[in-house]
C-alpha cells in the first residue's frame, strides 16, 4: 500500500506538469513546482470541497488538483489546510476525514474519524505529530507519517483553531457561542494544564512573540467580535480591539473588520494591523488605494493569508453562491492580481518554497 502510494506519488509528480496544464484555464507550460494551494471549502451537502493550484508567476489556476490527481473528490466542506514537512494536510469537516497530500496534490494517506471522535476542525503540527480539534470536544494527537491516532485529550465544547507556542497547544473552545475558554495543553504530557477565560465564542488563533492572539465571535449582537491576546507564560488576557479575521506574518497581525448594516444591506470592511513586537495597533490600512482595495472595503472578508516567503497578502471573498475570488497584494499593499478559484468559499492557502 505504502509502496503503491509512493509509486503513485512519483508517477503523478512526473506527469504533474502535463496533467495540471491540461486542466488549467490558461494554456501555458509553466511547471507548478513552487506553487500555492487554495482550499475551497465548498458548500455543505454539495461534496464540492477542492484544492485550487495557483501559479504565482503566471497566475494560472487549476480548479481542483485533488480531483485531477486522485480521480475522486476531496469531499464535503474543506475546513483547514496546513503544510508540514513536505506534505499538505487537509481536514474535511462534512466528510469527517483528514487527508495527507504531497505537493502535487496526490493523496498519500487518509484517516476517517468515527462518530465518537466527531468531525474534524483545525490542525497544528509539531515534532512529527498533528493535533486535530474534533467536535466531540477533543483534540487528537495523530502521527503525521501514517495518520494513526495516538491519543485524545478532552478540551472544551466545539473546539475550533489550535496553535502551538512554547511547547504548549492553545485550543479555542467556541461551544457555538456557549463556551468562552481557551484550553492550554502541555505538548509533552498531552494534558490540559490551564483553561483561560476569554471573550465568549473564541474561534481564531495566531501566535507571535510570546502571545496567542484570539478572535472571539462574541454573542451575535450583544458582544462584538473581539481580538484579544493571551500571554503564553502568565496567561493574562488583554482585549485589543474589534476584528473579524486575522493573519500573522513577521510579528505583524493583519486584521480585517467586516460589519454589515442590515438596514441598508451594506458591508464595510476596514483593514489594519497590530504590531506584535511593540504591542501597538496601527489603524492605517495595509492595502494601498486601488479599485480592488475599494471593492474589498465593501465586502465581507472570508480569508486573509500571507505568503511567508515574500509577505504577499491574499484576501478571499465569497458570496456562498459563486466561485470565490482571491485578491493578491504585495507586502506593501499594492494590488497584483485577482484570481477566481475553482469552487466556493476559499478559506485557506499554503505556499511552497
Amino acid at each position: 500500500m505504502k509502496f503503491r502510494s509512493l509509486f503513485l506519488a512519483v508517477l503523478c509528480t512526473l506527469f504533474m506538469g502535463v496533467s495540471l496544464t491540461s486542466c488549467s484555464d490558461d494554456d501555458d507550460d509553466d511547471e507548478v513546482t513552487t506553487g500555492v494551494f487554495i482550499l475551497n471549502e465548498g458548500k455543505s451537502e454539495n461534496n464540492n470541497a477542492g484544492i485550487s493550484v495557483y501559479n504565482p508567476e503566471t497566475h494560472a489556476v487549476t480548479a481542483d488538483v485533488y480531483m485531477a490527481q486522485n480521480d475522486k473528490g476531496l469531499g464535503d466542506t474543506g475546513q483547514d489546510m496546513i503544510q508540514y514537512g513536505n506534505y499538505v494536510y487537509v481536514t474535511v469537516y462534512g466528510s469527517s476525514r483528514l487527508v495527507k497530500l504531497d505537493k502535487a496534490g496526490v493523496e498519500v494517506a487518509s484517516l476517517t474519524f468515527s462518530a465518537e471522535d466527531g468531525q474534524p476542525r483545525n490542525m497544528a503540527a509539531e515534532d512529527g505529530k498533528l493535533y486535530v480539534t474534533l467536535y466531540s470536544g477533543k483534540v487528537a494527537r495523530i502521527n503525521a507519517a501514517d495518520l494513526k491516532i495516538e491519543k485524545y485529550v478532552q478540551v472544551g465544547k466545539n473546539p475550533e483553531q489550535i496553535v502551538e507556542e512554547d511547547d504548549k497547544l492553545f485550543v479555542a473552545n467556541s461551544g457555538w457561542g456557549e463556551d468562552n475558554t481557551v484550553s492550554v495543553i502541555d505538548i509533552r504530557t498531552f494534558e490540559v494544564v490551564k483553561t483561560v477565560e476569554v471573550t465568549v465564542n473564541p474561534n481564531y488563533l495566531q501566535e507571535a512573540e510570546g502571545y496567542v492572539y484570539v478572535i472571539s465571535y462574541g454573542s451575535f449582537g450583544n458582544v462584538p467580535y473581539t481580538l484579544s491576546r493571551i500571554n503564553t507564560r502568565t496567561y493574562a488576557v488583554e482585549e485589543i480591539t474589534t476584528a473579524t479575521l486575522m493573519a500573522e506574518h513577521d510579528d505583524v497581525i493583519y486584521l480585517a473588520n467586516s460589519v454589515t448594516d442590515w438596514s441598508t444591506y451594506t458591508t464595510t470592511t476596514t483593514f489594519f494591523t497590530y504590531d506584535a513586537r511593540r504591542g501597538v495597533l496601527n489603524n492605517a490600512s495595509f492595502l494601498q488605494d486601488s479599485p480592488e482595495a475599494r471593492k474589498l472595503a465593501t465586502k465581507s472578508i472570508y480569508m486573509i493569508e500571507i505568503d511567508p516567503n515574500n509577505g504577499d497578502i491574499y484576501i478571499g471573498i465569497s458570496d456562498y453562491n459563486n466561485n470565490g475570488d482571491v485578491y493578491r497584494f504585495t507586502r506593501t499593499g499594492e494590488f497584483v492580481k485577482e484570481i477566481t478559484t475553482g469552487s466556493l468559499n476559499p478559506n485557506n492557502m499554503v505556499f511552497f518554497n
Partner: protein
Amino acid sequence: MRLFFYRLVLCLLGGGFCPVSAQTADTTRVHELQQVDVSAIRRPSVVRSAAPLQVVSGAEMERLGYQSLADAVRRFSGVTVKDYGGIGGLKTVSVRSLGAYHTGVMYDGIAVSNCQAGQIDIGRFSLDNVSQVTLAVGQEDDIFQPARMFASAGVLSIQTQRPEFRGNRDYSLQLRMKGGSFGLVNPSLRYARRLASRTSLSVDGDFLRADGTYPFTLKNGQSVTREKRYNSDILSWHTEANLYSLLRDSSRVTAKVYYFQSERGLPGGVIFYNPYNKERLWDRNFFVQAGYEKHFNPRWALKGALKYNYSWNRYRDINVKYDGGKQEDRNRQQEYYGTATVQYVPSEHLTVSLATDFAVNKLRNNLPDCPFPTRYTSYSVLALKYHYRFLTVTANVLNTFVTEKVKSGERPENRHKFTPFAALALRPWQDRNLYLRFLYKNTFRVPTFNDLYYLRMGNTGLRPELAREYSGGITWSGTPWSFMDFLSVTADVYYNRVTDKIVAFPSTYVWKMLNLGKTDITGAEVNVRAEIPLYNRIGLHFSAGYTWQKAIDVTDKESKNYKEQIPYTPCHSGSGALQVQTPWVNMAYTVIGVGERYVLLQNIPANRIEGYAEHTFSLSREFTGKNFRLHLQAELVNFTDEQYDIIKYYPMPGRSYRLSATLRF
C-alpha cells in the same frame, strides 16, 4: 350488467374521457356520466379555463401507476417538484418557477397552511382517497370560493372521493393492499355508510411503512460505486372521516376530521466518505373542518367553512457536536380559520362574489429566543365574472391585512396590500372549441415565521415577496380526424417576475434573511391529450406535456451568476402517458423527462446536474363478482433503472415494483 359495464368504463376511463366532454353537451358520454356516476366530482375543462389548468383524476393516477401525489404533480407542465428522494422525503411544488412559497395547496376546498416553513410538503398526502388533483396557474375559474384561494400565484387542489353506494345498498367498503420494493407495505381501508337518505359518512384509514433502503449509484470523480440509502425509513398513519349531508332546504353540509402521524429518517444528502446520519423527524397533524353551502335562489348563494388545525413535529439529531450529544427541536403550530363567501348573479352574464377569510396562526417551539408569534390575517376579495357570447372576463381584487403579536423581541410592521387579478377568455367562433386566454396576476407571500424569527437569521424588517404573472395561451379541442374520438391541445406562454425575493444573505458568520432577490421567468408550455378507439372496446389514450423555461437571476449585475438560470430549474422538461384499454387488461406507460439543471446559482460545469428520463409501466385488470369488484395492478417503476437525482446527492430510487389489490364491496 350493461349499466355496470358503463360504470366500469367510466371508472376506468372516466378520467380520460370527461375532461372536455363533460362540459360539452353534444357528446353522448356526458349523459352516461350523469346517469351513473352522480357522486363523482365534475372534472373541469382545461380547454375552456381562462387560467391555465391541469387535471388528473384519482382513477387515472391509479391506472398510470403514479407512486404518490408528488409523482402525479411533477408531471404537470410548468411545475417543479423538489423531491428529496425516497417515500418520506420532503416534496414541495413550485409553479412556473415562482418558488414553492407561492403555491397554495387546497384540501377539499380549504387551504392547507404552514406559517413556519411557508412551503407545504405534499409528500404526506395519501393517494388512496383522492378523486381529483388540479393545478391552476393564478387561480381557479370558479369565483365562488374562499378568499385564500385567490391569494397564491398557483393553486394545487386536492379533492377526496365522495362515497358511492351501489344499487340500494347503504354501505360501501373498499380494502386495498399495496406492497413493493424497499419494504413498502401500505394497506388501506375505506368504509362509507348512508346514515339517512341524504346523509352519508365515510371513514378512511391507511398505514404505510417502508424501510427505504434502496440501492443507488454514487459517482465520485472516476469512481462509480453501488451504495445503499440508509436512514430513509418511514412509518405513517392517516385517518380521516367525512360527513356529507344534503339538508331538506337543499343546503349542503360537509365535515371532515383528519389525523396524520409519521416517523421518518431524514437521510440527508449523500456525503462522500461519511455515511453517518441519525436525523429523524416525527410529525403529527390533526385538523377538523366543516363547511356549509346554500343556494337560496338562482341569484344568491352562500358558503362558509371553519377549520382548526394542529400540527406538531419533533426533529432529532444525534451527534457528538451537540451539547449533550443530541439536538432536539419541537415545533407546534395551531391555526383557527374561518371563511364566508357570498355569490350574486344579477344577470345571466354576470356573477359577483365577495369572500372574506380570517386566520389566526400560532407557533411555539423550544428554540432559545422563541418569540411565540401569533399572526392574524384577514383576506377579503371582491370578484366578478362576466360572460357575453364569445367573451369571458374574470377579475378580482384581494385585500390582505396581516398583523402579528410576539411575546418578546421585535415584531414586524402590519402589512396591508391590495392585489389584482384579471383573466380574459375569448372564443372567436361559436361553433369551434377554440379559445384564446390571457391572465394577469399580482400576488405576494408574507415572510414565514422562520424568515422573521429564526434564531439570528430571522429579520422582522422583511417585506412581502412579490410575484407578478402574465400569461397568454390558445386552447382547442375537437375531432380533427375520424379515427380519433377527441383531441385537445393547450399552449401557453408566460412571463413572471419575482421581486423582493426573500433570500438568506451571508455576511461575516451571521446570515440574515433579506428582500434581495429578483427573478425573471419566461416560459412556454404545450399539452396534448387524445383518445383513439382502436377496435370495438379497445381504446388508446394519450397525453403529453412539454415545458420550456428560462428563469434567470437578475439580482445583481456585478454578480457572476447575473442572468443565469436559477438552481434546479430545467430549461426543458416534459412528460407523457399512454394507456391501452382492453376488456381483458389495461396497460399504461408513462415517462417523465427533465433536462440538465444547475445545483447552485452559478451556471458552471461543476454545478451542472444531468437530465434524466424515468419510465414506468403498469398492468391492471378488474374482476367482477356478484357483490364485489377486485382490481389487481402491477407496476414496474423506473424500469430502465435510471439513476438520477432531483436534488443533487439526494438519489432517487432505481427500478422498483409495486403490486396492489383492491377489493370493493
